[in-house]
């Protein structure tokens, strides 16, 4: 079943958006949920069937804030790995960070495609009960 893994960069940006752009954050996460429902129903990540999805290089997909009203342009970059049924949450950003964000994402995708253990966590399962991890800083 499709699941979600996050990166340290996503976490840092999440904290920033959580403080300043809560509505935008809720909108992109709501769209992520719709995308996940679609994947679980057997749809492939591509072609992009939703208006809020945008194709980027290296099979990265940008999920925008469409759906909310009067919201600033915001993009959540994800990489849906079909082999491991994992949606990687790469980073969050806006127009000003778009170029760097896409390059970061491309770099990451290269890295995980080369990793045979990708999509696996320590216990290789879902664990929704534990408290949040403490590996990331707020930079």
């Amino acid at each position, binding site marked *: 079943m499709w699941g979600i893994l996050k990166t340290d960069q996503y976490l840092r940006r999440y904290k920033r958006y959580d403080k300043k752009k809560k509505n935008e954050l809720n909108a992109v996460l709501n769209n992520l949920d719709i995308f996940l429902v679609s994947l679980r129903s057997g749809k492939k990540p591509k072609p992009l069937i939703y208006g809020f999805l945008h194709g980027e290089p290296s099979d990265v997909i940008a999920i925008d804030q469409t759906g909310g009203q009067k919201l600033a342009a915001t993009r959540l970059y994800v990489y849906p790995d079909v082999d491991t049924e994992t949606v990687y949450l*790469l980073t969050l950003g806006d127009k000003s960070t778009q170029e760097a964000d896409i390059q970061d994402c491309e770099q990451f995708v290269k890295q995980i495609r080369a990793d045979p253990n990708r999509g696996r966590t320590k216990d290789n399962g879902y664990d929704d009960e534990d408290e949040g991890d403490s590996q990331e800083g707020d930079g």
Partner: protein
Amino acid sequence: MMTKTKETAKKAMDRPMRVVGKKYASVSALVRDTAEAEVANEFDKYQADRRLINCLTVIRCANEVTQVELAKRMDCAQSKVSKMESSTDADLNFGDIISYARALKQSVSITFAPARKNGGDRIRFLIECIKHELDKLAKIAGDDKTIGDAVEAYAIETVQNMVKLIEESLDRLPHRMQQSNAPVSIEVECDRGQRLPLNGPKRVHKSAKKTAPVA
């Protein structure tokens, strides 16, 4: 002096991303783990306010219907479909919901029921719904033996499928996960005296056999 592109490329090389934490089964679980309880509750409310319209959007896209195409079928402007999909459920017009669903060849049903206390009550209610539908089929069959046999075969198949699904749910129970493929086996005693196993022969396990007579 480096150009902007080179600077951003360098930045990406300097600070590679890495996966942190565990795998989440849902966005809600992710938010609950990442944010404070108040923020997570806010997100849950945000989603709850859009449950219906999210569902309609998923159906539209799963059927590969664009907003323009849907608007044509609804005989309205594309902007109206877009506006609907950006609204909360409370802002939707009931007539528009019906129109949207019909344009996607979906039937709409609304259920009024007392607020259910727990999952067990809800399951009992859904079983009553299945009975209601099977009663309707039995009524259609009337005295026609051919249709009657088909309805009976269909009813048995339905129960068999339900047993399989229930088995899948039970397999998620921690104590069952420790056993390997512990089967749920149910036999139905028909009014003709036959005893029908409701699951495939491979999954029948004598030690776990239970008998569930059907009224």
